[in-house]
């Protein structure tokens, strides 16, 4: 009955991986409609942007599409986290066990990441087909995807922790998902937005992520400040998520 260790942080890796497999991969197999639903908006926007811009803005739609899939799946995690805590009491079952809240949060995060994988693979393939990606850019993209998954999953834990009942959670996550992925410069160049408005949008981690990637991929002026902003926001959300998860009340 040994536990695994990861960089000094005591994590139950077996639990995390099996949870991600059962709740991420098997979910895709047993409930494929959810996967299609999560791909519907970014693929529709990709199609529209391609048609309207005559293909000129396609790189934005592909980078934005990846970020959008990861973000909306992570935000939708709020509904799951709230459902597990308030409705089916699945979280309570693990609270009264040797599992730590870090294990539980990591397991849910990993399952959302796994659930996003088919979409990520599809967009990465498009990125290579349209010569937007190379190996180095892919590595950078994966790092940004991990940061975005961490930040928005923790936002999901915060939302789930603040709720007293679940009746509004699906509405809240749908609104947040649209705000985070459509309003922010995810599918369009960040420099066309008025500066003041862009500063407000920086509150969402997807904005610095998009600014960084658009700059790094040579689509827009490079703004190195976007990297520390993204990292700081991710760390802040992880700290808050850790507080709001309501493990032992």
């Amino acid at each position, binding site marked *: 009955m040994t536990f695994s260790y990861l960089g000094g942080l005591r994590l*139950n890796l077996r*639990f995390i991986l*099996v949870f991600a497999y*059962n709740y991420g991969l*098997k*979910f895709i197999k047993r409930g494929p409609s959810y996967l299609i639903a999560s791909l519907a908006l970014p693929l529709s926007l990709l199609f529209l942007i391609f048609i309207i811009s005559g293909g000129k803005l396609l790189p934005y739609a592909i980078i934005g599409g990846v970020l959008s899939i990861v973000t909306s799946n992570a935000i939708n995690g709020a509904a799951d986290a709230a459902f597990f805590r308030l*409705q089916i009491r699945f979280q309570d*079952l693990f609270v*009264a*066990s040797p599992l730590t809240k870090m294990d539980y949060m990591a397991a849910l995060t990993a399952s959302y990441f796994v659930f996003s994988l088919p979409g990520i693979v599809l967009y990465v393939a498009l990125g290579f087909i349209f010569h937007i990606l190379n190996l180095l850019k892919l590595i950078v993209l994966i790092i940004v995807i991990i940061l975005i998954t961490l930040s928005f999953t923790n936002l999901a834990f915060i939302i789930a922790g603040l709720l007293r009942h679940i009746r509004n959670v699906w509405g809240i996550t749908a609104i947040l998902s649209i705000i985070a992925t459509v309003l922010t410069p995810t599918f369009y160049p960040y420099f066309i937005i008025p500066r003041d408005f862009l500063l407000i949008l920086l509150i969402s981690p997807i904005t610095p992520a998009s600014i960084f990637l658009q700059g790094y991929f040579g689509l827009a002026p490079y703004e190195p400040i976007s990297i520390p902003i993204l990292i700081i926001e991710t760390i802040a959300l992880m700290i808050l998520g850790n507080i709001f998860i309501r493990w032992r009340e």
Partner: protein
Amino acid sequence: MISVNDLKKRYGNIHALKGVTLDIDDKVTSIIGRNGAGKTTFIRILSTQLKPTSGSVKINDLDINKDVQKIRKIILSIPQEAQPVGIMTPLEHLELYLLARGYSLSDARKEGRYALEELEMRDFENVPCDELSGGMKRKVFVAMALASRVEIVFLDEPTTGLDPLSRMEVWNSIRKLDSNIILTTHYMEEASELSDKVVVFSEGKVVSRGTVDELLEPFKDKVRVEKTDGEEYDVKIGKLSIKYVPKHMAQEYLSRGYDVKNITLDDLFISRGITLES
């Protein structure tokens, strides 16, 4: 096994527990009480899900505030209204739960299958839980308790909302557990079927405890008579007048239009602690 001393829990202005002092050392102890009596709060504190406002709890001499992780290794708590995740199968639930307790994957699978076999659920081990009946879903959690072989199992209203047949199925499963069990219920029949001792909670306090026979001692040789707007009563619930009378007077009350009922554990609630005339 469990020693509770002056346990209090307050939610804002609401005093959910008002100084509970109790020792629990029986194989199966039922905590009964009406909705809002403090049963769930009590069990959530004992199972380390909720911090108490004040007071102390010791489980096998481990302190609920200082030794949380040690306590979590020897307990399992099945929350009220717990439901399995619809898309996951019973075996996947068991594997996951046992992995959470530190089992290896092969041991988790082996113990999971053993528990499902014991509860006659092997045929359903790979069926997604949203395709199972209510009783089967609840048995998934009992299987967790069976497979994990913990010392103490807390069951918060394990059969609420189940039909009588499913309830009996769950009771039979619970009887197979070797662990010490503390369960809350507001089904008197459940407490009577499963428990060695019964603790009665009312408004955040323990109002009585003992075996079923001991608790029903004040009602010995009595029957409950009841009538809508009856002129005599010990307790009035809405328009229903309820009175406890010696058995030999039952016929007299029947002739006056009262219904006559045998005493059950329900009468502990109904009587609300009134002192019965001998």
